[in-house]
């Protein structure tokens, strides 16, 4: 009897079916999870409140309560804690709870004490899984149809999900980044980390607190402390080792990426398999046990995939614009052959006081001085025209003024006035701006 009463009085969140010991906590939960504005993170009091806030402040419409179960996402119902829950849902909730209790009563231990640990375990999962990420990861969440009940969930809920994670851990990334270890700060939803305790077993036992405390964005500080306490953090190892050879190949930051793939039978790593094409095309295992990468299987970029579509094949050139200054290509062809680090000196450069036309031309020594932000005297850039700095900010007409060729925006102010017109002459060779003003297209006048 007493037990039943306790059950009934336990407050729960209508939006996600989670139970709380205290209505205060429930309200805190609702404000943080369901009534928080995704733009400014202001915590509102009700769903309609959030919707009005977003509409008025950010001019955005919100049609769903964030992180809510699909059938409980109605933004228009005003619910605050346990207040405002439709009576039929309360009844349904009670009914399900009791049903579960009866069902689950046998396998579970008879003591009511068992009620406590299960929800506690579920908590971090829910918290983590329910981050404000896109779509809100719901891994480890209670099933939508009813409250998580310890008795019935024990076999399946308590071990089910976590077992899943445990097993999937080594399979690779879709599940979560086991390689990151607890010290690895994660940004964004960590839902897929799954049950942190199980997750960390293999990697870095006994330091899962940071995740629980700061599920969404463990701060850098946390990261630092955890790594300090667990100096063997696998994640940073390769970095330190490569540091000594900065020029050599830098290994992947997260070595577990590669190791997991080899150790897993169902790896979701890009598998290099000789396909029927002459070229070896790597394949991406896009479908994992509980995830799917929305990408073609071939490990080539989306643009390459798209470029193969017949409509993008070479088509008859449709020139709508006359090209008056086409440079003959052969000349360029020759240049292309030269796989070379340095420029050949060009006559044009002699015109300038200092050969910095393109700084890379200059031999390293001098270019270092030139390029270093402090020492680089802007005067040396003979390539620029100094239009009024504000030219481009202004209206259309301004746009047509002789442009500040090659002038880094930051340097405009730094330029000595004397340098302004200095190099106007050299660029006559360049079919560029100086000659343009008279040729201005009518459209721009």
């Amino acid at each position, binding site marked *: 009897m007493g037990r039943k009463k306790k059950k009934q009085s336990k407050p729960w969140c209508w939006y996600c079916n989670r139970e709380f010991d205290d209505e205060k906590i429930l309200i805190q939960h609702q404000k943080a999870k369901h009534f928080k504005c995704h*733009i400014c993170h202001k915590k509102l009091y009700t769903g309609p409140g959030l919707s009005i806030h977003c509409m008025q402040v950010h001019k955005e419409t919100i049609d769903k309560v964030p992180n809510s179960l699909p059938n409980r996402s109605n933004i228009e119902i005003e619910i605050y804690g346990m207040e405002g829950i439709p009576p039929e849902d309360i009844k349904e909730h009670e009914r399900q709870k009791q049903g579960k209790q009866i069902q689950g009563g046998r396998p579970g231990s008879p003591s009511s004490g068992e009620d406590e640990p299960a929800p506690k375990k579920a908590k971090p999962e829910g918290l983590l899984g329910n981050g404000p990420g896109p779509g809100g990861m719901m891994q480890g969440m209670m099933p939508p149809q009813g409250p998580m009940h310890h008795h019935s969930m024990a076999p399946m809920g308590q071990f089910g999900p976590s077992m899943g994670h445990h097993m999937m851990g080594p399979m690779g990334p879709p599940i979560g980044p086991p390689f990151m270890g607890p010290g690895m700060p994660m940004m964004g939803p960590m839902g897929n980390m799954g049950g942190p305790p199980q997750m960390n077993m293999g990697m870095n036992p006994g330091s899962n607190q940071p995740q629980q405390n700061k599920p969404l964005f463990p701060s850098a500080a946390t990261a630092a402390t955890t790594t300090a306490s667990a100096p063997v953090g696998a994640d940073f190892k390769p970095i330190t080792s490569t540091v000594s050879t900065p*020029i050599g190949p830098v290994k992947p930051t997260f070595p577990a990426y590669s190791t997991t793939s080899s150790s897993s039978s169902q790896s979701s790593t890009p598998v290099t398999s000789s396909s029927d094409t002459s070229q070896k095309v790597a394949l991406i295992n896009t479908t994992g046990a509980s995830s799917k990468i929305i990408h073609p299987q071939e490990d080539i970029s989306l643009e390459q995939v798209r470029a193969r579509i017949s409509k993008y094949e070479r088509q008859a050139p449709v020139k709508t614009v006359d090209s008056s200054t086409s440079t003959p290509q052969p000349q360029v062809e020759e*240049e292309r052959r030269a796989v070379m680090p340095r420029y050949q000196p060009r006559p044009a450069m002699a015109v300038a006081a200092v050969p910095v036309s393109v700084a890379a031309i200059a031999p390293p020594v001098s270019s270092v001085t030139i390029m270093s932000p402090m020492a680089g005297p802007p005067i040396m850039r003979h390539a620029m025209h100094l239009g009024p700095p504000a030219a481009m900010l202004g209206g259309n007409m301004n746009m047509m003024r002789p442009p500040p060729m090659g002038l880094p925006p930051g340097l405009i102010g730094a330029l000595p006035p004397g340098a302004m017109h200095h190099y106007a002459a050299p660029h006559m060779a360049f079919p560029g701006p100086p000659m343009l003003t008279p040729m201005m297209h009518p459209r721009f006048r």
Partner: protein
Amino acid sequence: MTESRTEFKLKTPPEDGISSVKFGPNSAQFLLVSSWDSTVRLYDVITNNMRLKYTHDRPVLDVCFQDAVHSYSGGLDNTLKMYDFNSNTETVVGTHDNAIRAVEYSPEVNGILTGSWDATAKLWDPRSPRCVGTYTQPDKVYTMSLCGEKFVVGTAGRKVYVWDLRNMGYVHQRRESSLKYQTRCIRCFPNRQGYVLSSIEGRVAVEYLDTSPDVQKRKYAFKCHRIKENGIENIYPVNAISFHTGYNTFATGGSDGYVNIWDGFNKKRLCQFHRYNASISSLCFSHDGTVLAIACCYMYELETPPENMPEDSVFIRYVTDQETKPKATNN
């Protein structure tokens, strides 16, 4: 999709997928858009009209401003074109042996850099204009970004090469992506400390260029752009990254149609915009970080294309400090 004051759609958008959007170096008014319909268009986002358009023979994969009146673009026609807005003239600057995937302008050396599927990057002198250097990359170039004089190239096979524009004689750093899956996009921090790399598997890594262990310790990766549906987690490619130059925060866009803004140093997500009707293919903050251009189109991620092909569109969104500025304290 509700049109609001903070966000609007560009009129006369490209007629096919959008490969790249780029704001000018000093203005939030003009936006270059390259497209699979083989055009490059220049928009005035203040008046919301298209100012001009020029074409390549085949789809254009990237475009950049050299200055307010010159653009450079390249694509499947292997050709780098320079276009002069004033005279409405185009110049073929040169070619690669395969498609040009990325085009960037470096004010530091006043040069144009192109990255191609022919596994090279080239440096072009905009004044002649001609190729002044070819640099072999480990594989097909998928993405590249400039960080002052550092030049970061991401290729197929998850390789990352870091070059130094002051001395292109050797590769400054040879790295492998920290992420397990194909590299999708790399963008450098405006403060030049490092770069952000995204992969096709809904994950983003924050990397530092300084190789000292203390600095390297700060690198990390996080998951994003994933949506759980019916018990299956759909993991989307993170196609686009753009930095807010003032705050060093960055926006990511994924094939899930979401745009998120992150504070990489504090490991916080600052905000998420509403879901767009298609994949986010490209993002670009204006030079002052007040405007974000969002390119939205279907990107052939799916085995079978959707029946109703989503519209190809470019959204211009005026962003607030609230959305882009790192928060001083936790709230």
